[in-house]
């Protein structure tokens, strides 16, 4: 199966638009679950407004949140797929810029020191593009995540040492949730990376934060941590918007990787309640959009 850059460009453009406007069904279900279990009246009202906003965005064909985020594209190339990798990355960049221009999206991307905004949602190294492989035959999947800054600004890495054990990981996550307070637009998905190198650990945290709600870490040790930490952070009472309540996090997600005998790294990256993402799948049957 040969994939042309034009198809990728079109998908990259459409994915940015869809991600900004349509919240994935698992996140909507997450809202319904929190709204049911929330015991604080003010927090319940706030969750109700957040749910109403999802409907208003759909009814008015508008963006869920004004923050167009840092655009991230995750690409998985299946077996038997022929694609020019360099052309693919250029096509993603073009699609991202076209969505911004053609739909009057706010370009949220500036040079880190001059702060110059090219008004295209692109810049040096942005969009962030990750390319990986899958054993799915004749499939190329692209996930788009417009990562909001309120949650991204609350990201942490701690290079704990082996003598501190798993307790260091647990304590760190609880302290990060306390430190974030209302700044991350809770309820959040708390993404936790455990193990790896410093950079891999942070990447794992991002993967965890942007994983669909209801999914589990495929490492049983990670899955156990997810369950324990989800309960613990929701005991803190930070609540929606940091204004109190039971609904601090939809869930804590954990991703793990092996690490060095001398290392015990832990990273936290959060996703706000507007946990946006969109997915395109290219197969011989054509292009399909989903989440």
């Amino acid at each position: 199966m040969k994939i042309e850059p034009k198809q990728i460009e079109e998908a990259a453009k459409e994915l940015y638009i869809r991600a900004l406007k349509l919240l994935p069904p698992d996140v909507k279900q997450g809202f319904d679950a929190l709204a049911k279990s929330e015991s604080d009246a003010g927090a319940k009202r706030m969750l109700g407004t957040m749910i109403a906003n999802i409907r208003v965005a759909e009814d008015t064909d508008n963006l869920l949140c004004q923050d167009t985020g840092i655009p991230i594209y995750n690409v998985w190339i299946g077996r038997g797929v022929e694609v020019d990798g360099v052309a693919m990355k250029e096509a993603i960049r073009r699609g991202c810029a076209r969505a911004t221009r053609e739909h009057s999206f706010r370009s949220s991307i500036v040079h880190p020191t001059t702060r110059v905004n090219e008004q295209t949602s692109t810049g040096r190294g942005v969009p962030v593009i990750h390319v990986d492989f899958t054993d799915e035959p004749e499939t190329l999947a692209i996930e788009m995540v417009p990562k909001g800054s309120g949650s991204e600004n609350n990201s942490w890495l701690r290079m704990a040492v082996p003598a501190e054990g798993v307790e260091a990981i647990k304590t760190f996550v609880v302290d990060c949730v306390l430190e974030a307070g209302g700044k991350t637009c809770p309820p959040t998905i708390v993404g936790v990376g455990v193990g790896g190198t410093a950079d891999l650990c942070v990447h794992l945290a991002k993967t965890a934060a942007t994983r669909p709600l209801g999914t589990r870490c495929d490492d049983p040790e990670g899955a156990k941590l997810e369950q324990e930490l989800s309960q613990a952070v929701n005991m803190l009472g930070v609540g929606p918007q940091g204004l109190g309540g039971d609904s601090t996090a939809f869930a804590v997600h954990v991703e793990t990787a092996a690490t060095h005998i001398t290392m015990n790294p832990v990273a936290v990256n959060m996703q706000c309640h507007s946990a946006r993402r969109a997915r395109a799948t290219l197969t011989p049957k054509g292009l399909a959009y989903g989440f």
Partner: protein
Amino acid sequence: MAHHELRPPISEAQVRLLRVNDTVTLNGTLYGIRDATQIHMFDRGRKTRFDLSGHAVIHTAPNVRRVEKSAAHPAGYAPVCIGTTTSDRMERFTLPLMREYGVRLVIGKGGLRDASAAAFRELGGAYVAIIGGTAALETTWVEAIEDVDLDDLNPESLWRFRVKGFGPLLVAMDSHGASLYAEVKSAARARRAAALARLGVR
């Protein structure tokens, strides 16, 4: 827990009537302000031609569309999606906004810290919380972009919006020293030990 319908500019006496957990709905003028706007105003000596005295500012950088200037779009911009950003990054600008420009209300999300609480207490101001991430809804409360200043900073320009039924919003920090964020933060820190015990952390 009173409800206040406000049409800025408002007086110090009016803002001192606001108490945390009260609600506010705004009508009329609302100014949009952001990191770069305030960095340029307070660190780089730039001035705005707008009179912010007695007004409300909201922490925002909107999505807008350039259009022909008309009665409906006097600034040549149509709103696309207007929402609110995290206030905490702009903590150090609350005092100069109030002292140099006479701002009375800051609307934002996630809260401000002690220096802002002190400014609200001393000069007469309040922080009003909007629910972050609900921009599609918020946009329906904005009638028009009436004017814009410092537009070379776009999207972090200084925007003048005309709003109708903008709310209800929650008074989260008042001029009497109360802050819902500080209360929740302190209660959450008090629960830290119990959360760690649940996790089996000694």
